[in-house]
């Protein structure tokens, strides 16, 4: 600043012609040049700022775009139409694989050799017999009849239909054999291979076979975990905030608690995982991979976020409200519970939603407490083995199959959708209930 002043002062003093008025000095060539340079610097700086914002926005678009591009196709899955004759003897033996294969061979009368049949067998998902079995189990009267079913295709066929393989590459580099492509093309031509909405994705648990894997189990695990987190951290957090903001005397202890909470909010999340592993699993002997433990760890992690947000909301309530309540004879606790807390509730709620959104997207601490296990079943209780959506994403991202990349992307889309909804709800709540005193 001082430097700026001196420069302008220097520009003024050595003016050579004493006759010239100050106005003409301002019109001098040197002054104009300097001004141009300063304005150019101004424009450059402003441009740099705009470029920074544009870069951040570009990254957001790139990130979302790449995920949508990879994941959109996973909402569809390839299915094969078969005319299955449910031979009662085979049904009694539960030999559904043979039934399906026979129906498939019937569509390819020209294939008689073993190699050709093997190609056909591999068109079907290894889960297809179970689909048929479930159908028959639901309606035993089907045995003995002939019915048209659509069963899941193998994940490679699914990817082929979606155009993930380049047909112009030689067979050895393509990753899928000519024979399979030919068989799939024949089915496509006859209309027996088509895409439908992918319900498996939303109902099934994890699987080693991409076409049978879904995020149903992970979503259930996420919900259970979040339930525990919410039940523990919301009441505790609000109570702690009320104490610190309304009742705590200002002394060294409360100062320590305050510093401690601020620090806790910035501790890396993986440290909370180590805490959970050592204390909850190691010391208390709680079960591994359980939503209960996951929820406990997440509750400790979100607690500081909720306390800080609640304190800000409580602080925003004007003291006149408290004085009025105390003046008509309410006890301090009644003042807080009946008047201050209800008025601070929208702010607290917003902070809570943001904390929950963070817990929902958190992965690292859950890896530590074993929620990274391969779990096929959909969890039903707080102590069942479970995984959560972000961890499922992490595990699928490591899988080599192409179809898993697609499923990972779609799982991310769903997770992001939920998070944006939650954050949007927080913003709207803030807008509706925002109150200036």
């Amino acid at each position, binding site marked *: *600043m001082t430097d700026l002043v001196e420069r*302008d002062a220097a520009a003024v003093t050595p003016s050579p012609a004493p006759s010239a008025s100050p106005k003409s000095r301002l019109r001098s060539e040197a002054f104009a040049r300097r001004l141009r340079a*300063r304005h150019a*610097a*101004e424009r450059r*700086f*402003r441009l740099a*700022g*705009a470029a*920074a*914002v544009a870069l*951040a926005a570009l*990254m*957001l678009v790139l*990130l979302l775009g790449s*995920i949508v591009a*990879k994941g959109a196709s996973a909402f569809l899955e390839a299915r094969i139409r078969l005319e299955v004759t449910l031979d009662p003897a085979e049904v009694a033996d539960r030999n559904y694989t043979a039934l399906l294969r026979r129906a498939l061979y019937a569509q390819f009368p020209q294939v008689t050799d073993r190699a050709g049949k093997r190609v056909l067998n591999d068109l079907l998902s290894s889960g297809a017999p179970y689909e048929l079995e479930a159908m028959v189990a639901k309606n035993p009267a089907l045995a003995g009849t002939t019915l048209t079913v659509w069963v899941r295709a193998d994940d490679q066929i699914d990817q082929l239909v979606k155009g993930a393989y380049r047909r112009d590459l030689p067979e050895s580099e393509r990753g899928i054999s000519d024979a399979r492509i030919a068989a799939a093309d024949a089915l496509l031509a006859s209309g027996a291979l088509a895409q439908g909405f992918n319900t498996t994705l939303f109902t099934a648990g994890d699987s080693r076979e991409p076409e049978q894997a879904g995020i149903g189990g992970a979503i259930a695990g996420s919900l259970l975990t979040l339930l525990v987190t919410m039940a523990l951290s919301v009441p505790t*957090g609000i*109570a702690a905030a009320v*104490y*610190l903001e309304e*009742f705590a005397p200002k002394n060294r202890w409360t100062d320590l*608690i305050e510093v401690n*909470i601020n620090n*806790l909010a*910035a*501790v*890396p*999340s*993986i*440290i909370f*995982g*180590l*805490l959970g*592993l*050592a*204390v909850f699993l*190691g010391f208390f*002997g709680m079960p591994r991979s359980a939503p209960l433990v996951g929820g406990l760890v997440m509750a400790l992690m979100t*607690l500081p976020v909720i*306390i800080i947000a609640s304190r800000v909301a409580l602080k925003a309530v004007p003291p006149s409200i408290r004085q009025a309540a105390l003046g008509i004879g309410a*006890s301090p*606790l009644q003042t807080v519970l009946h008047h201050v807390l209800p008025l601070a509730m929208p702010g607290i709620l917003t902070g809570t939603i943001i904390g929950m*959104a963070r817990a929902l*997207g*958190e*992965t690292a601490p859950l*890896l*530590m407490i*074993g929620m*990274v296990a391969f779990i096929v079943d959909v969890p039903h209780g707080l102590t069942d083995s479970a995984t959560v959506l*972000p*961890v499922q994403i*992490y595990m699928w*991202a*490591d899988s080599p199959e192409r179809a898993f*990349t697609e499923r990972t992307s779609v799982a991310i889309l769903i997770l*992001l959708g939920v*998070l*944006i909804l939650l954050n949007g709800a927080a913003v709207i709540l803030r807008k509706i209930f925002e109150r200036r005193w």
Partner: protein
Amino acid sequence: MQLTLLALILALLTVIGFMIGRSRAAASVGGRVAELHSVPSYHGVYVALWAGLPALLLFVAWTASEGWLAMQLVLSALPERLTTGDGQSVALLKADILNLARGISTGREADPLVVGAARRYAALRDLAGWSLLAVGASLAVAGLAWGRHRIGPDLRARPAVERVVRVALVVCSLVAILTTVGIVLSLLFEALRFFSVVSPLDFLFGTHWSPQMAMRADQVGSSGSFGAIPLFAGTLLITVIAMAVAVPVGLMAAIYMSEYAGRGVRTWLKPALEILAGIPTVVYGFFAALTMAPFVRSVGEAVGLDVSSESALAAGIVMGVMIIPFVSSLSDDVINAVPQSLRDGSYGLGATKSETIKQVVLPAALPGIVAAVMLAVSRAIGETMIVTMASGLTANMTANPLQAVTTVTTQIATLLVGDQEFDSPKTLSAFGLGLVLFLVTLCLNMVALRVVRTYREKYD
């Protein structure tokens, strides 16, 4: 089962207690509630607390000690040759009993004595569950009766209830302290066990990291080495790359938004940055591993550089992108806290906007910005998912951002994922790393938060 039942019974008794207390209080003064010391509903809460609280405390104490007690009883019944021995074999025996009692096969032929012990353990736990139910329920009923007996016009119900509520509030605010104590103790305790095997000096200053421990004494490569310098170097490299992206972009974005952007632009930009801040780290990791890393690699190959497929550059750039909104929102706060009078003074002297920002606003905001950067560094050091998914596992000591490096958090995550015995140096080393990570981030946060605090006070 029994726990759910007990919870239901307690909830029911509490509600009943509330209603009894309220109506009895009113009845005790013949409906003239003004004669009561406290409002009837406080009497209700008073009885409900007597019904619920003692039983709840018993329940907590019981469940905390039940498993341990049952295990001690079972172990004391076993012959001594099984229960004596080093800590490891006893721990294994306990794990076997627990697994068998839960009906999980241990995967090997079990000793009939152990099977018997497991059956006894399961029976004891079952018995304990039912007796907890009985004792808890009777305690709740007794509490209810006692509370109901105390009710009268002179009972100071409100102060009593308020005392309990205040204690509960204090306990809740102590949870945060307890969490910190828990973190410090668990990290210290496990890290000390690790340092009893590996010397702290070797750990902190060793330059070779290969956390293997021999299964057999004569195994090839049996001596694991736990020199953490390569991990610290890798963490530093990725953090530096991330900061090189996040600090300029975040700071310039904050300046643009607070000083240049109009209202209309800001209403769009702020939510966009908030979305960027709300994206889970696992998503960034996926982006880094599947989009950014191949991109960096192909760009590198196009200019003739040898780029690893898990380069530090890709992970660092994506981590930087993740931290941009963090830096920009913190800097935004700091810049907005600079008083308008300073800006006005500068404009009055004829400075342009950028000159004002560079020579007045930024110097005034510098402490806050430094604090923001420190918090961002602490965030980058502690970030796990991006580096776990996009950087390598090999402990390279290099300053070349095109090579794969590994970080402290990656190692913690990979060492502890999966079923592992708790007491091998390999898993314990993760706690040693965790302790270092905790201490470093704690120092950064403490200093940064203190700077922010004094800075706020300066302009408030």
